[in-house]
């Protein structure tokens, strides 16, 4: 995968959390995933087409998503429910949109579908999209949870 596709998704993730929830996160080193499994408590997935085809997914642990949603809504949210799942869909949508804007400025055109969300403690998703899978781990400040974004894109020939 062209590595220039990765940074826009990292930037968009940090920016969306900062702007919509005033949350600061730090990210670890991106790595190439060998397995197709995605593990988390709440996961948002969005399909991508255009100059590359694949998916963007965000898998949050419960502590992370409850911290984010509480900050977004301005009230304490202590259980993962329909509203939390809805918020993950919207966060996925915003990160995808902002990353695609940065990529457009770099001459790469991508479109996105409407996101889907899966909930269930320690659920496992099997990705069937083709192409290398790059995972980037994130940690929310003050130990408020962790999440991982995964970019799986196959470049158009």
């Amino acid at each position: 995968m062209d590595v220039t596709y990765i940074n826009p998704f990292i930037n968009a993730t940090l920016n969306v959390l900062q702007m919509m929830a005033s949350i600061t996160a730090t990210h670890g080193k991106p790595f190439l995933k060998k397995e197709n499994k995605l593990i988390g408590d709440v996961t948002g997935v969005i399909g991508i087409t255009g100059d590359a085809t694949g998916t963007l997914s965000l898998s949050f642990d419960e502590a992370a998503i409850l911290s984010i949603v509480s900050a977004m809504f301005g009230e304490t949210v202590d259980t993962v429910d329909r509203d939390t799942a809805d918020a993950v869909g919207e966060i996925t949508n915003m990160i995808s949109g902002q990353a695609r804007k940065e990529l457009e400025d770099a001459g790469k055109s991508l479109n996105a579908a409407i996101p889907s969300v899966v909930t269930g403690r320690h659920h496992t998703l099997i990705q069937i999209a083709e192409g290398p899978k790059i995972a980037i781990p994130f940690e929310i400040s003050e130990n408020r949870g962790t999440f991982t974004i995964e970019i799986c894109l196959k470049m158009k020939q």
Partner: protein
Amino acid sequence: MDTSLKILVVDDFSTMRRIVKNILKQLGFTNITEADDGTTAWEELQKNKFDLIISDWNMPKMTGLDLLKKVREDDQLKDIPFLMVTAEAQKQNVVEAVKAGVTNYIVKPFTAEGVTEKLEKIFS
């Protein structure tokens, strides 16, 4: 700004409707109606009079762009200010919305200040 204005907030994600509503309430607006898609928004527009539409772009049944086009083609509704709030920030999207007659455009993620600024521009 006249805070008695009747506002229709359209988004398929309840999260975004909630965030937009919270911002509008902070600004003093209380007359807010929600719709979860372009089709339900269109039904609301047939039943009630609105002074402003704030709509998302990507929605499953009727997109915000299609809703905007329908509103602009309708003699009764064509002059209602239409603020598009969307994650679609690519140039092509902005051009398409402007061609369809959008009043203003705000890209997600946004801050309360960003929404306030757009509303002030619309009603100045």
